[in-house]
């Protein structure tokens, strides 16, 4: 992404407009990565803080949204690498076979159900999947944001979706799901 920055550039999009347009989706992306409101808020703030410092250097203002998502994802990965509790898994080596695509049969979904189901999916599949659903990103755009090849994006979305469909179909066949709570 740094190669897209230069010292003299076209005027960057207005900061407040940019925040208004993208802070919700960025926060939702961050929440799906972290599963923590405070951490997601911090990540979103940090991303815009970086934009405030460096955004004016972006050569192509139309790339502002992609820049924001890319930066947020990088910040997330850096934070994770600093934390031994969340090792980064690279699954490409074991994901070479075609997935068995399950039938999907869900009739109704609310936000909480979707978030809980996504939370059960491995982090490497969750990031491209969230981008796919949140902002209708294409393979190519997701590859750019996550800095991985297009083929890898296709593979991860396919496997992530298969897993997601399985979880949702299984959930829809269960009558009640009791949320996790602190013990008494």
């Amino acid at each position, binding site marked *: 992404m740094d190669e897209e920055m230069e010292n003299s550039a076209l005027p960057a999009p207005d900061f407040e407009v940019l925040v208004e347009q993208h802070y*919700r989706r960025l926060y939702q992306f961050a929440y799906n990565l972290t*599963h923590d409101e405070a951490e997601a808020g911090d990540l979103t703030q940090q991303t*815009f803080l970086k934009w405030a410092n460096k955004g004016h250097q972006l050569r192509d203002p139309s790339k502002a949204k992609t820049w924001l998502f890319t930066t947020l994802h990088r910040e997330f990965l850096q*934070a994770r690498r600093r934390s031994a509790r969340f090792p980064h898994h690279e699954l490409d080596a074991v994901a070479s076979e075609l997935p068995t*695509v399950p039938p999907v049969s869900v009739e109704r979904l609310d936000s909480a159900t979707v978030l809980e189901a996504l939370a059960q999916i491995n982090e490497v599949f969750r990031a491209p999947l969230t981008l796919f659903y949140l902002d209708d990103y294409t393979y190519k755009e997701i590859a750019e944001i996550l800095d991985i090849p297009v083929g890898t994006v296709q593979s991860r979305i*396919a496997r992530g979706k*298969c897993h997601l469909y399985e979880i949702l179909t299984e959930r829809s066949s269960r009558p009640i799901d009791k949320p996790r*709570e*602190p013990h008494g």
Partner: protein
Amino acid sequence: MDREQAKEILLGYQPGSDDAVDPQIAEALRLAESDPELAVWFEQQQRADAMIRTGLRDMPVPSDLKERILGERQIVRVDFGWRRLVLAAAAVVIVVLGLARYRTFRQTSRYGLGTYQMTMVRYVTGPYPMVAQARSFDELRQVLAQKGWPTDFIVPDTLRNVTVVGGGALEWHGHKVDLACMRESGRGLWLFVVDNAALPNPPATTTPRVQMVDAVTTAVWSQDGKTYLFTAQGDEAYLRKYLP
């Protein structure tokens, strides 16, 4: 291309996007038109995707997030139309502020309110030792005082009638944390209190802010220099019954 290969390709297809010009996706779409079974699957899949998409986009966003972002930006705002000398001075200020902000961010990430909330919630969601058996807040204060822990926390009026079962004397990066454990109608309730000085970003107001932490409903607020964190076995509506 067989049916399963077409399914894998179509799983990531965004209808209406430039993806359709991709030769592989175009072939998969043609197959979906000519293969009735694949067509039914594709339709089901798109319907499910639309529901997932809506569910994900409906996810709530903190109401004060936009203000926080805009407020933070004012600190690093620069007028690039100023003369070179002023720009140089501004650059120095920005570097200093940037370093300060970065340091604050690092501290906030490691020792901040979000991490504190998560740590405390995880403490009571796992097995934990009850260091103090107490049947009232007065008894709890006596036990905490004997251990050298602060006792000047304020119990919200809404919690005065719940049953106190005990408490704990915890530490957070060298700062003492009081824990009160309560029960009401078979449900557990917990109140953590720590000095605001223990956190780089304590809550700004006395109005409780309700947040989900690790899928558990919590509320935080600040009062008289202390940060209060409250959680209970229940949803947001249940939690709010006990908030000040």
